[in-house]
């Protein structure tokens, strides 16, 4: 009894107990909360947590939640700016912009026959499926009110997302491959970027 009462009054033991009981638990819960909102997504290195508050001010049950980590597709992508009139440069710039600002592991630009103009992270054989895909959608567009110039297709291992734009010489397709389909906002960004590029082809 005596030894027990002595330990509870020992300042060093109390500080040690507090440190064990409060700080690590808060850290674990923060990690779980951060992961719950972004499960199964590629996560960039987490932002450094704000400096810990002094132990005396923090309640043992307080959970510090850092601002949610934003994925690159959640940032508004800057508008594509083409500095060259050369079609090859324009296509390369569009591909680089897509890879930089959209959540994808690969991207491509193809014509409406499925012939690759530029690609990264996807084989030309896979890109060629754009030909029959876009042909099939011609009849879908006959239905009033159906645009069908963007979509996503499950390839078996990856999801291909694509948008289509046309100029007087024909149709062109910008696509990405990744684990998930792109958001509707990302589709709008891709379509705008493709339209800017197609005007220069």
């Amino acid at each position, binding site marked *: 009894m005596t030894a027990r009462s002595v330990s509870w009054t020992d300042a060093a033991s109390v500080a040690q107990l507090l440190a064990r009981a409060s700080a690590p638990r808060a850290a674990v819960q923060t990690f779980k909360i951060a992961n719950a909102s972004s499960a199964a997504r590629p996560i960039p290195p987490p932002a450094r947590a704000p400096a810990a508050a002094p132990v005396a001010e923090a309640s043992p049950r307080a959970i510090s939640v850092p601002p949610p980590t934003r994925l690159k597709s959640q940032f508004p992508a800057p508008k594509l700016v083409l500095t060259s009139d*050369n*079609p*090859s440069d324009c*296509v390369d710039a569009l591909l680089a912009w897509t890879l930089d600002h959209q959540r994808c592991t690969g991207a491509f630009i*193809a*014509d409406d*026959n499925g*012939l*690759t*103009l*530029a690609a990264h992270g996807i084989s030309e054989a896979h890109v060629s499926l754009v030909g029959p895909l876009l042909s099939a959608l011609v009849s879908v567009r006959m239905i009033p009110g159906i645009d069908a110039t963007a979509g996503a297709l499950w390839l078996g291992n990856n999801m291909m997302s694509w948008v289509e734009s046309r100029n007087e*010489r*024909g149709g*062109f397709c910008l696509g990405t491959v990744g684990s998930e389909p792109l958001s509707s906002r990302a589709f709008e960004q891709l379509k705008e970027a493709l339209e800017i590029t197609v005007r220069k*082809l």
Partner: protein
Amino acid sequence: MIDTKILDTAVQDLRNVLRDGLVATDIWERSAGLSLAGFNQQPVAVALFTRITTELESSLTDSNFPPLARYYLLDMEGNHTVAVVNHGALLQGILVDNKRANLGILISVAIPRMLETIARAQSR
């Protein structure tokens, strides 16, 4: 009348688009076999492809096949691809290194641009 300045511009544009993938190109009059513009011009190729195109067109006609439209392609040894473009009275041969030039750019961008520009040159 054919505006040869526009033909030269078209050849320069083709060089810009295909860059070091373009090995040679000629634009020539089909009837005379006379080259009007080009880059790294190949007189033997002009004669050869005039003959091949004439034979091809007559063979298609004799077989009741649809006539030649915009172009035909030959895949050759040594990573070489030839596109022969039908501009009507003019023909154009484009020899590319298919490891350096993207065939998608050639077919979907370069050839349509050439067709438009050379049609403009012939309408002058």
